């Protein structure tokens, strides 16, 4: 067990997988000599050589297309897209190819690629280094979508992703790459997909979040505790597969739900969560479902602190939801 930052945990997860399995190869921009722009791959070129840590030309469709071919052949490629905001040149490869290979071939060609990419705001990254567009991928059949929020989860979910048989979009909350530290188990530590994490037990309101919003929600819940409002905080960890059972069980207990994500609200992942609750927990609900999200604008640069949900906004919504009905 080691005390690590989230980005160090990603690094240890990659290192562990590469030590254990010679089929694991990394490819991406600036991941070799430079160790990645966030240093997630630091030291890996030195340990594993340029046959397994490929500094690629500047082409996201080339990175993902090449990774798809490697995976079809039997390797376990882990591609890094430098920022989620830069993934769109590879969208065709992800949506038309990677996600559909198993299905379109009748199961003859599984295609297992992990795409790691830092996502989200709060680093003064402006329009093109801040977005949270997980819904595109969660909406695409055939992709698993994973968003860790702690160092232990980052390593454990990443190792599960590497050995999973399906394509995985692994979204790393770059805002908390270094601000969050925690104990991370040594070795081949894996956390299964589809299991939400209970961050804080509560009885009055269920609050659902993932990625960089989890510490924000935890902070709000702590403050609300002092006001006599008991918020239950659940970290979804994987959006696909979704742990619906945990979501429903919590709301059946509290009767109230607040959904928090930094992505824009319209057609955001929170819409799906709200629909699940409306369809399957309607008679448990004592109050309207609330969403605390980014706004339906492009991501603003100078005013990002007003765009992103913070503990005050979350606490405000939880208070209203606790009192409603």
């Amino acid at each position, binding site marked *: 067990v080691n005390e690590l930052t989230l980005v160090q945990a990603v690094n240890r997860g990659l290192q562990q997988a590469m030590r254990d399995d010679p089929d694991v190869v990394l490819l991406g921009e600036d991941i070799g000599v430079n160790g990645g722009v966030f240093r997630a791959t630091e030291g890996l070129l030195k340990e594993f050589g340029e046959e397994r840590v490929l500094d690629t030309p500047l*082409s996201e469709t080339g990175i993902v297309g090449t990774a798809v071919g*490697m995976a079809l*052949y039997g390797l376990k490629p882990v591609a890094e897209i430098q920022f989620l905001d830069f993934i769109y040149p590879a969208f065709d490869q992800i949506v038309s190819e990677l996600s559909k290979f198993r*299905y379109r*071939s009748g199961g003859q060609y599984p295609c297992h690629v992990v795409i790691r990419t830092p996502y989200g705001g709060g680093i003064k990254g402006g329009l093109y280094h801040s977005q949270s567009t997980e819904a595109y991928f969660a909406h695409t059949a055939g992709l698993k979508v994973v968003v860790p929020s702690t160092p232990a989860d980052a390593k454990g979910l990443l190792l599960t992703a590497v050995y999973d048989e*399906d394509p995985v979009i692994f979204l790393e909350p770059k805002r908390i790459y270094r601000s969050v530290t925690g104990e991370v188990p040594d070795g081949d530590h894996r956390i299964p997909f*589809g299991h939400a994490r209970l961050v804080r037990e509560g009885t009055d309101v269920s609050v659902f979040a993932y990625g960089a919003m989890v510490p924000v929600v935890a902070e709000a819940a702590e403050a609300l505790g002092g006001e006599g409002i008991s918020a239950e905080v659940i970290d979804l960890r994987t959006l696909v597969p979704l742990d619906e059972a945990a979501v429903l069980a919590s709301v059946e207990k509290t009767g109230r739900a607040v959904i928090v994500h930094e992505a824009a609200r319209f057609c955001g992942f929170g819409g799906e969560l709200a629909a699940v609750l409306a369809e399957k927990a309607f008679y448990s609900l004592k109050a309207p479902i609330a969403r605390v999200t980014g706004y339906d604008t492009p991501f603003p640069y100078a005013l990002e602190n007003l765009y992103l949900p913070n503990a005050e906004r979350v606490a405000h919504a939880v208070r209203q939801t606790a009192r409603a009905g």
Partner: protein
Amino acid sequence: MSATKEPSTVAAQSAAPEKAGLPPEEILAAYRVMVLARTTDDRCLSLQRQGRIGFYVPASGQEAAQVGAARALRPEDWVFPAYREIGVALARGVPLQLLLDQFIGNSGDLLKGRQMPNHYGFREFNFVSGSSPIGTQISQAVGAAMASRRRKDAAVTIAFFGDGATSSNDFHAGLNFAGVYRAPTIFFCQNNQWAISLPRSRQTRSETLAEKAAAYGFPGVVVDGTDLPAVYAAVAEARRRAVAGEGPTLIEAQVYRFGPHSTSDDPRRYRSDSELAHWKETDPLKRVKELLVTAGLLDDAKDTAVWEEARRLVTTALEAAEKTAPLEPASFLEDVFAAPTPRLVEERAEFEGLLRDGVVRP
């Protein structure tokens, strides 16, 4: 603008059969495959008009390019097709029955009815499942080639694509990566002169497509795609280079699409009958037949027998395909993931309930 055969500015290849290393008996075997491909095409166009298959993409005119290329490969090599490569599939040994089952989308279809006709893939023959987006297979072929080298395998990969694909993102990305990593890949462009309605001259200002390879740092060659031994020789040399670690090759095989882009297309809207007639003078089947007659391996009577045999094979496979049971209705809910997510399990139960209650009918 009429698309005529372009002069080669890179490295014209025209080889006599013996020079190309393709023995006459091999040419006869290739001819049988070419005739089978043409016969299947002709039959499928009419089946589509009769509503017996939903769609079809013909390859007529491109048989020498496809079969010549495939014959220069080994079974362990990986083919990344577009959707017009019936000649490659048949030359790889894919049974005609599997193709007809795929066109119909019955329970014998290895792809389980998931794809439109022609978008097939057969793992057993290292013929990767294709798709409709243009050019995406090009960078994938590069990745598979890099993986083959990492595993220290002798397999090379070959990507098939058309002239239109040379404008796609993945053509550039794939060739660029292949150049940088010296991937053991062959880029086989069938320049059939038309990307649906856009002529080759409007696809790029380059004089040839092959010359684009120079920008990526490896050779590009133009080959007469109606000349079977020439195509074979070009691909055999590209394969030799790949295996020897000399890197990728771009081959532009100049051909002509005799038929429509697909059964949804009417080529009379954009090209002339005289252009088609001009290219039919070098129909690849006619050219191979002449080679075989000269070599004393074929005469008119034997040729008639070759065509009759092809028609019989297609009829037999078609009859069997039409008699094969349809797909299980709920099968479309499988193979999204290795194991279904809870959500997919739930949706399957919902669908089966609707079936049971007669709300939806197969």
